[in-house]
């Protein structure tokens, strides 16, 4: 079953075509990761999927077009972990997680006991219960990222969008968060669409990679198919060596051009 489809999607921002003719199809319960250089349109494509920017073409969840949905209905279908989430002043972790229940709370209503129970369950899952009355402004980067994830999960949406979810995390915390998302994907049947900078990590966690450049899809497939020295060199302008680890994973290692090494060494 396909959870999310995009057909010939285009986004124009300030008269610039940022996303151009992108078509994708994400089977339910799988993880698709967008990779590509800065400005390739990864975040904008995710914003189009979440309804934050207007788009041409069609984006549909289970056959329902996103542009036809009211924001409440959309928020029940797709949850977002933004790239740089705001930390609201004076708000506790519990209240922050409860924000995710907004699409289920009447317009002028307040949280029910069920909403509170669901938030409590997620605080346990993400090991945040002991922090539930701390202010989000006082959390470490890793703790806050788990809170953001808990907020997104409390939306109970079948589709989870992650925009550079690890950009503010160190290696260990980045791994923890991605492993957690993968576990939740498996246990809850979530469909995950993410944008990631780190190519090796992208290859490790995604079922399907899509390489974007200048708003267009230039390659897609498995890590082995997308993360090649030729494609990375052509679209990132970077020299890399692509290795295969013993488990069959793809490792992308940046190389320094020989000439500049000599120059920096001052041997000339």
């Amino acid at each position: 079953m396909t959870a999310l489809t995009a057909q010939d999607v285009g986004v124009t921002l300030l008269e610039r075509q940022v996303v151009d003719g992108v078509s994708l199809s994400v089977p339910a319960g799988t993880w698709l990761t967008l990779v590509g250089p800065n400005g390739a349109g990864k975040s904008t494509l995710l914003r189009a999927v979440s309804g934050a920017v207007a788009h041409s073409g069609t984006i549909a969840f289970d056959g329902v077009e996103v542009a036809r949905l009211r924001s409440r209905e959309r928020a029940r279908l797709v949850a977002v972990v933004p790239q740089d989430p705001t930390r609201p002043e004076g708000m506790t972790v519990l209240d922050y997680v409860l924000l995710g229940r907004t699409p289920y709370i009447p317009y002028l209503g307040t949280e029910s006991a069920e909403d509170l129970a669901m938030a409590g369950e997620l605080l346990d899952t993400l090991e945040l219960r002991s922090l539930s009355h701390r202010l989000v402004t006082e959390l470490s980067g890793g703790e806050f990222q788990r809170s953001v994830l808990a907020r997104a999960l409390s939306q109970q949406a079948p589709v989870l969008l992650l925009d550079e979810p690890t950009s503010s995390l160190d290696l260990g915390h980045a791994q923890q968060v991605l492993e957690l998302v993968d576990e939740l994907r498996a246990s809850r049947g979530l469909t995950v669409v993410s944008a990631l900078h780190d190519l090796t990590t992208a290859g490790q966690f995604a079922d399907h990679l899509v390489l974007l450049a200048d708003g267009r899809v230039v390659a897609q497939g498995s890590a082995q198919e997308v993360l090649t020295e030729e494609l990375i060199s052509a679209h990132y302008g970077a020299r890399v060596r692509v290795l295969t680890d013993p488990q069959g994973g793809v490792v992308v290692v940046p190389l320094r051009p020989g000439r500049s090494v000599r120059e920096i060494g001052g041997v000339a």
Partner: protein
Amino acid sequence: MTPVSSAAATGPDTAAHALRPVRLPRRWLVASLAILLAAVLLGLTVGPAGLPLRGVLTEIVGLVPGVHLDGGLDDRQAAVLWQLRAPRVVLGLVVGAMLALAGAGYQGVFRNPLADPYLLGVAAGAGLGATFAIVSGGNRVLVPLAAFAGGVLGVAATYALGRGVGGRSTNSLILAGVAVAAFLTAVQTFVNQRNVDSLREVYGWILGRLLTAGWDEVLTVLPYIAVSAAVLLAHRRLLDVLSVGPDEAGTLGVPAARVRLVVVLAATLGTAAAVSVSGLIGFVGIVVPHIVRMLAGSSYRIVLPLAAALGATFLVVADLVARTVVSPGELPVGVVTAFVGAPFFTLVLRSARRTW
């Protein structure tokens, strides 16, 4: 700057006994209502003709249907209480509550602690409207009407200009407010220059005052302020959702632009009504919500109701000071609020650790 809202505990919940979501703390509610009551009694009893507290209380209790008490005030005292003091105190209550609510609402939708109810051209528009009404020399009854119309037109112009130049962006709206206010103020200054005779009266209006002649002013503005206050209070949870910014609020299912429009309309309508009968009383809209944030927490579920109570208290007390400190003369109440407000404003700026 803000205490942890876990202090807002309201008793155990069977579904999740250890979790306490943000609620209006009962002790703060009780405390704010207590000082509100004290301010009202002070406002009713203190003045050139002092009224005995016991007599005033007896008169108030006597309002309850079916209760008849003797030992109240004599006829002259009762007339002072019901025709002079009470309308003025009640006007102070509704205007003060409205300005504080509108200020908190603006701060919520613009996510800016310095936003005040006069931000989008209400003050300049109302000032110009009142100036026209005063210099035209017509019936003074028309001044509130002209101020109300001017305030609403000022905000309408700001909205039209803001949308014209920058779509739905918050900054373009605020900058449009600056442009509209500057333009309207220039027109007002020009009109004043041509009509120096009425300058004193216009000036007195701009500084803000709670002058009443019986209950007319109160009854005129009450419907607008009641509707506006109800709408703002009903949006208290949504203002908390907006604190993560319009984009994230959108992904949580809240149409941020629409909520902002509703809150701004309600705040503007209420502010224009308040300004029409009280002139431009500054600082209540900024100072009061900040005091509440620092004392009780920054969730709008706490800020809005407590700001309404504290704003009402603040203005009643400020008006008491304004009419007693240079007795038998009167200071404009706007001078008193600014006298407290300006130093406080500096303190807020010093202690605000967050970069907005």
